[in-house]
């Protein structure tokens, strides 16, 4: 009997020891004792941050007039989007499962919940009316629309569509995410993240280089074709031109003229002007950093130089940067840094964004000359005075996925502002002509807005 009792005691003691061991393991692996388990400590920090986010009401976004772009929701849940598609790429999604993107990833996470567990109130420079109109304009296409205030750098519209048949709807993210994943490059913000040649819109830079370097009088007697390094450069549609000057070349987008002009200028001068237009220079904005590729150097070959001058070669950029080129024309040669945040209010404190100069690309005189040339272009496209004073240049770039077409426009005195606009469409077989009706529609809207 005594042996039995002793054995019982031994069993119970063993089980009690097992329980104590489990308690010890619990303490060691739960991160309550710092340093006991580095892996647990690290994971705990991550979870605490996630838990903090889950307990926080996501702050709201407002447009430039104080109207809600998002509406507050329960703690831990994404704020409801008032315009679930028009702002989708700029605003970004916020999902427990798929994470965050866009401005939400950039700002709501950084600010956290504060003392009141409510995220910051962020006022954008975006005009909701322009944003929605621009988004509707892109229906049935893949492309983007950027509208900048040339004098302040404020982004008035920045919208994108990455699929002709399906739009990114922020309110349907969880249910439609798997469908979105099946679409190629669906989450690519085509306004800022695409890297394609600028096409003939780059001729604005080449023209600026010609003017700045006193070669604006350059003419091309025979602009039918140009043979460079075993490659033949043609004009669009194989058109032949004779005795072409800068005005005619820009109006008709004569590839041979600009190729010859680039060779005339030389790589160094063209590259210098391009750099002042921020090609190859990181553009740091409050919604991301963008760097357009630019391939001109000291040892650039003639073919590369000629191709670059007409907007092909190794140059790759995004529609936002293309619109920034027009701001130099409108703003007396000064490019302002684009910004989309107007002010951020959190825990009773408000910080406001001040306009910053990104670059003095060209002189005021050059800007005036370019205005004259581009206004001539606009008139040839049919943008008469009923659309305001318009400056324009179209562009069609060859890419591996088809054409990427652009129309770059500047318009003065829209509600006292000077607006630079870039409207583009990618993965198409058509030329930039297809964008003319859309730009007319946009200009009419802006005049009546």
């Amino acid at each position: 009997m005594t042996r039995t009792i002793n054995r019982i005691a031994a069993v119970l003691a063993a089980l009690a020891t097992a329980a104590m061991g489990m308690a010890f393991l619990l303490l060691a692996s739960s991160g309550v004792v710092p340093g006991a388990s580095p892996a647990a400590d690290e994971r705990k920090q991550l979870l605490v941050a996630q838990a903090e986010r889950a307990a926080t009401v996501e702050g709201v976004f407002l447009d430039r007039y104080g109207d809600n772009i998002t509406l507050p929701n329960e703690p831990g849940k994404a704020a409801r989007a008032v315009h679930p598609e028009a702002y989708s790429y700029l605003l970004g999604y916020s999902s427990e499962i798929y994470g965050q993107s866009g401005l939400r990833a950039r700002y709501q996470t950084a600010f956290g919940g504060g003392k009141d567990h409510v995220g910051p109130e962020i006022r954008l420079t975006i005009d909701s009316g322009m944003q929605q109109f621009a988004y509707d304009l892109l229906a049935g296409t893949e492309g983007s629309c950027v509208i900048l205030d040339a004098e302040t750098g404020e982004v008035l519209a920045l919208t994108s569509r990455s699929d002709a048949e399906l739009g990114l709807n922020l309110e349907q993210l969880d249910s439609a995410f798997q469908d979105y994943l099946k679409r190629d490059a669906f989450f690519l913000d085509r306004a800022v993240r695409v890297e394609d040649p600028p096409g003939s819109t780059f001729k604005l830079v080449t023209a600026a280089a010609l003017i700045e370097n006193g070669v604006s009088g350059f003419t091309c007697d025979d602009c039918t074709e140009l043979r460079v390094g075993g490659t033949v450069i043609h004009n669009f549609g194989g058109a032949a031109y004779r005795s072409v000057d800068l005005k005619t070349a820009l109006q008709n987008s004569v590839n041979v003229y600009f190729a010859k002009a680039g060779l005339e200028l030389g790589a160094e001068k063209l590259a210098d002007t391009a750099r002042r237009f921020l090609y190859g220079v990181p553009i740091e904005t409050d919604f991301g950093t963008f760097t357009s590729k630019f391939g001109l150097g000291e040892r650039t070959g003639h073919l590369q130089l000629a191709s670059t001058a007409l907007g092909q070669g190794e140059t790759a950029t995004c529609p936002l940067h293309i619109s920034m080129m027009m701001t130099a024309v409108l703003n007396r040669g000064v490019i302002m840094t684009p910004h989309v945040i107007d002010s951020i209010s959190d825990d009773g404190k408000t910080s406001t964004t001040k306009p910053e100069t990104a670059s003095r690309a060209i002189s005021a005189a050059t800007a005036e000359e370019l205005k004259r040339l581009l206004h001539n272009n606009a008139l040839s496209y049919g943008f008469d005075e009923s659309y305001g004073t318009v400056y324009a240049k179209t562009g069609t770039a060859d890419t591996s996925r088809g054409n990427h077409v652009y129309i770059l426009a500047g318009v003065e005195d829209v509600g006292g502002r000077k607006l630079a606009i870039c409207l583009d469409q990618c993965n198409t077989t058509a030329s930039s002509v297809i964008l003319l009706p859309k730009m007319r529609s946009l200009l009419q809207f802006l005049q009546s807005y």
Partner: protein
Amino acid sequence: MDTNKALTILPAEPAAGGKRGIALQAAALKTAICKEYAALGAELRGGIRALNDREVRLHLAEDALFLLLCAALLAFMRGSVTELFLSALIPSLGIAAVLVLLSEAVWPGARAAAMTIAVLILIGFFLQSSLAAEREAPEMLGKFVLFSAIGIAFGLGLGLPLIRVFDDHLKPAPALRLLQTAAIGAYLLLLASPSVNGAHNWITLGGISLQLTELCKIEACLATGIVVRAASLSDRKRFTGLALVLAPHLLFLALCNELSTAIILAAVGVMMAGVFLRQGRRLVVACVLCALAAGCALLPCRAAYCKLHPAEEAAPAAAEASPLEHRLADVYEKIHMRVLAVTDEEQAGDFGYQQTQAKKARLLAGWFGSDSRVPLPVAESDFAFSYLILKMGLLTGILVLLLWCAMPLAAAASLRSARPAAMAMLTTMLLTNLASAASACGFIPVMGVGAGFLSCGGTQSLANFSMSLYLLSCSEERRIHDDKNH
């Protein structure tokens, strides 16, 4: 009437087969039940009379004050005494008070064990009320209250008497036959029932879902107790008898995919043999053989799994597999995925979701709990310990572990002698609770184990309270009122 039998030699009874044998057994069972209810009635009447004693009332007041202080401390730890906590306070104190009253008035030697169970009940109620408030579903707390009340009523009115009938009154052989027949019948019912996530654990009777494996644990403890008490048999025969009693349980539990319960009962069997039998070496050999058998049993499971899930280059052969192969493959997959859920969360994928959430809860808990909302699946039952840690902190979790250990220690200390069935129940309860805590913390690859007095489960409440009341009633001290003498 002294029903507190020691480890005694039970004489072998002459075999009585056929219809006469069944009739004799039925008569014996009826007599035993009547005797036991009479004994229980005498104890309860003795307890009522004991309330006239000032000292008993003083002890009850001390216990009540202690429970109130515990309740206040729990409410303080939760940060506030909300309406829902108040609604949890009354039923939890009520049910804890019943246990305390029984221990003071009827079975005074079991005071320590009763108090540990009472504090666990308080913690369980506060835990469930916190969960109900978080999910805005007050009916969850109502369900827990109902299950606990039914558990106490069932335990006192049916569970305890039946356990004592089989442990004290019936002769070993017929008792064993009845128990094993009932167990096999229950397992066959379970196997015929629809499976839930691969496990056959529930049957539905008249809209009520019963988890028969919980009740089969009680039967297994009683049966093993009967076998080891039969000292007239040699150790070798008792050892063999123990194995034969447990083997059907382990087999059926494995077929029902209740592997955690099977492992617990196997451990209880090993403990019973080690404590009550003299052949230690035989025990070691048996353990090694069992482990080898379990390993070998996995081989056909793995083969079936590989057949149903061939490599990509091989042609799929799932359509040719028999139902048995499907079942074996399910067993292997379940074990494999659960081990992965503990060792490699990424490979476990969706299957490891519950373990991942439990680990998150553990990391966010801190010493005193957190307001973080970690979506814990089945937080009211299988992951109750994980939820407890999250809401009340690691200190409370460790306290609960201590209480789970303290209860059997206190119960064992109050036993005048070593009662095998009681010992088996103590070990079963403690192992189940530890397995529940370990699985909720992601330490072991098992799931679906409820935590004693914390989890919300109807059949689990019936079993827990029945076993707890039986353990309290094994106290060496009893107040028995004999009507004939008063």
